[in-house]
């Protein structure tokens, strides 16, 4: 994975010094809260329901064991002993003190980490495929391109006061494991007819109040124009994105209001102009970055044998591991969704354990997924049982990847001052209702996502089953949506009808799964059955 050179290190160190000075000026009163707020947001520091919350960046979801260990230590030293992994592959701490944040950031900088632009009206953390560099279906590792874009977007002077936040995802396979089309810019690395690698651009996707699927704006951008094209897309947005209404300020609204063709025309015009300026890094820079993403030293003789006689282990292998491009290896997902647990949360001890296990069994590397789980990308099959036993002993061995138990949930009203309803208790109840291995196996792949408000941080629009928390005259209420999907077959969930209270929504979810089980044909997933039979049978079962 990428290692900082002295320039990268100086940038994060400078940022810490800058923020330390800004905090000093805030505490002395020289900066008002209005003046300070945008500055602290661009260092990931939110004010939440209980305290300051800090969002630390995990660039394209990749980190090493030394970094993971520090994340655990920070949870103990600066917070209350745990962290929360997010739907953008970052980690959040909920009880941070402003006066301690500069020191915290300095400790992160010492292990090449930061909280730069994880909030604010700027380009945010760039996300990617959690199986990058390990899955057989990628045409290239997408992460070097994400790293190139990360550096381009960091402290970009023209794009630090955008109309709104800006989220980019980069993938390199047909199978979209990063919900690419639901980003402001989604990039898919592709091969053209001549066999050359280039970038396919999708612009104007997003969740939130008005979910939209990004249309393709450019079928192929050559590698030596990647930054220039990105800059053109951003400049058009900076100039013409709406600034009159916070809820209409994302680029998806601009693309929608201009129409895809007109937005594309404006980008192409800006692109043609920018190509006359020397703003593109040389290909040598991309090559330099790629040298950090070479394959680990796989054991070519690693055995493909796996002893599955332990039934719990077998279940975990079937559910939570994915084929690796290298014989004798697997990609292993650690579920942070124990039955009845808080989705995405991990204690400091668990975080440090995962750090150690990555060092011992995964070439020192981990990934954070946008489904709030952790991945060990390169595990020898021969080590898998030992790894799983260690995980299982720490309540990290739940075998529920992509099943109904693998719930994505935002922090909700328990933590977030934007929320209308609590999301975590709903996740816990659903998790318990469907807690048995038999039930999860019966339901198969079922992506359930919960948001505590319309800002949709839980990605509920993209859930096979989605739940949206609302405030109904001061009382928490939950809407049920069906049929969303974040993959290459992106679709947005449809509301079933009137909302429910907390117990009601859990019952409604169960009724929906029963409709699926009664109507399922062959190997259909819940999503497939819903798409085939439509909303009516579900609606009738739930409300009839």
């Amino acid at each position, binding site marked *: 994975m990428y290692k900082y050179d002295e320039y990268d290190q100086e940038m994060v160190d400078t940022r810490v010094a800058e923020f330390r000075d800004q905090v000093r000026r805030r*505490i002395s009163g020289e900066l008002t*809260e209005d003046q300070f707020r945008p500055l602290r947001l661009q260092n990931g520091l939110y004010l939440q329901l*209980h*305290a*300051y919350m800090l969002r630390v960046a995990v660039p394209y979801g990749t980190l090493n064991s030394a970094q993971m260990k520090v994340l655990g230590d920070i949870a103990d030293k600066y917070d209350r002993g745990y962290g929360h992994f997010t739907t953008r592959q970052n980690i959040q701490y909920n009880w941070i*003190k*402003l*006066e301690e944040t500069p020191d915290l950031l300095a400790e992160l900088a010492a292990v090449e980490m930061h909280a730069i632009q994880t909030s604010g009206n700027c380009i945010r953390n760039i996300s990617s495929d959690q199986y990058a560099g390990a899955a057989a279906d990628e045409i290239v590792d997408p992460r070097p391109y994400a790293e190139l874009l990360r550096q381009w977007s960091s402290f970009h002077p023209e794009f630090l006061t955008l109309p709104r936040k800006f989220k980019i995802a980069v993938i390199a396979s047909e199978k979209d494991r990063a919900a690419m089309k639901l980003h402001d810019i989604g990039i898919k690395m592709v091969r053209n007819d001549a066999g050359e690698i280039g970038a396919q651009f999708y612009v104007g996707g997003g969740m939130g109040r008005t979910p939209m699927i990004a249309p393709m704006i450019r079928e192929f951008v050559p590698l030596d124009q990647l930054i220039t094209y990105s800059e053109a897309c951003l400049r058009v947005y900076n100039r013409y994105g709406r600034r009159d209404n916070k809820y209409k300020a994302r680029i998806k609204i601009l693309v929608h209001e201009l129409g895809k063709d007109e937005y594309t025309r404006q980008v192409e015009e800006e692109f043609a102009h920018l190509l006359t300026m020397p703003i593109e890094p040389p290909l040598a820079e991309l090559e330099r970055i790629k040298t950090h993403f070479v394959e680990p030293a796989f054991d070519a003789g690693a055995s493909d044998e796996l002893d599955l006689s332990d039934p719990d282990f077998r279940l975990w292998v079937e559910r939570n591991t994915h084929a690796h491009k290298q014989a004798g290896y697997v990609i292993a997902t650690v579920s942070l969704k124990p039955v009845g647990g808080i989705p995405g949360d991990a204690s400091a001890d668990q975080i440090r354990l995962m750090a150690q296990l990555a060092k011992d069994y995964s070439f020192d590397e981990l990934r954070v997924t946008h489904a709030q789980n952790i991945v060990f990308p390169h595990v020898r099959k021969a080590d898998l049982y030992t790894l799983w036993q260690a995980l299982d002993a720490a309540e990290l061995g739940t075998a529920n990847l992509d099943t109904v138990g693998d719930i994505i949930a935002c922090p909700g*009203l328990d933590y977030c001052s934007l929320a209308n309803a609590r999301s975590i*208790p709903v996740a816990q109840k659903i998790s318990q209702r469907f807690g048995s291995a038999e039930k999860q196996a019966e339901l198969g792949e079922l992506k359930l996502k919960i948001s505590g408000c319309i800002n949709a941080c839980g990605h509920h629009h993209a859930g096979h089953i989605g739940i949206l928390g609302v405030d109904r005259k001061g009382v928490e209420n939950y809407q049920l949506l069906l049929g969303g999907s974040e993959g290459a077959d992106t679709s947005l969930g449809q509301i079933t009808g009137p909302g429910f209270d907390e117990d009601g929504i859990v019952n409604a979810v169960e009724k929906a799964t029963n409709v699926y089980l009664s109507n399922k044909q062959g190997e259909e997933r819940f999503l497939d059955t819903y798409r085939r039979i439509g909303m009516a049978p579900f609606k009738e079962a739930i409300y009839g």
Partner: protein
Amino acid sequence: MKILTGNDLKTGAVIWWTGVGWSLDVNDAADVAEDGAAIVAREEGVQNVFAAYVVDGVRSDEGVRPAHIKERIRALGPTVRPDLTLKPSDPDAINWVI
């Protein structure tokens, strides 16, 4: 009653206006009647608090209970982590929120 809540600038802790100062305990919250905006302006001006706002509350023999569930969660702590709330040993605390 109208009560004021905000955050401590340096620590981020949730605090409640008592009439003379700021307390971590919502039961110390005072009724500010129509003076809320003026108190916020003054107290924020000298940095005793920031991000302060007025909410409805109800006083009873047990203490002060904010009218909206959001401020009750704010007052106590996350309902899903009783150990991190202001009343980790009180099994009835969650009922007070809900």
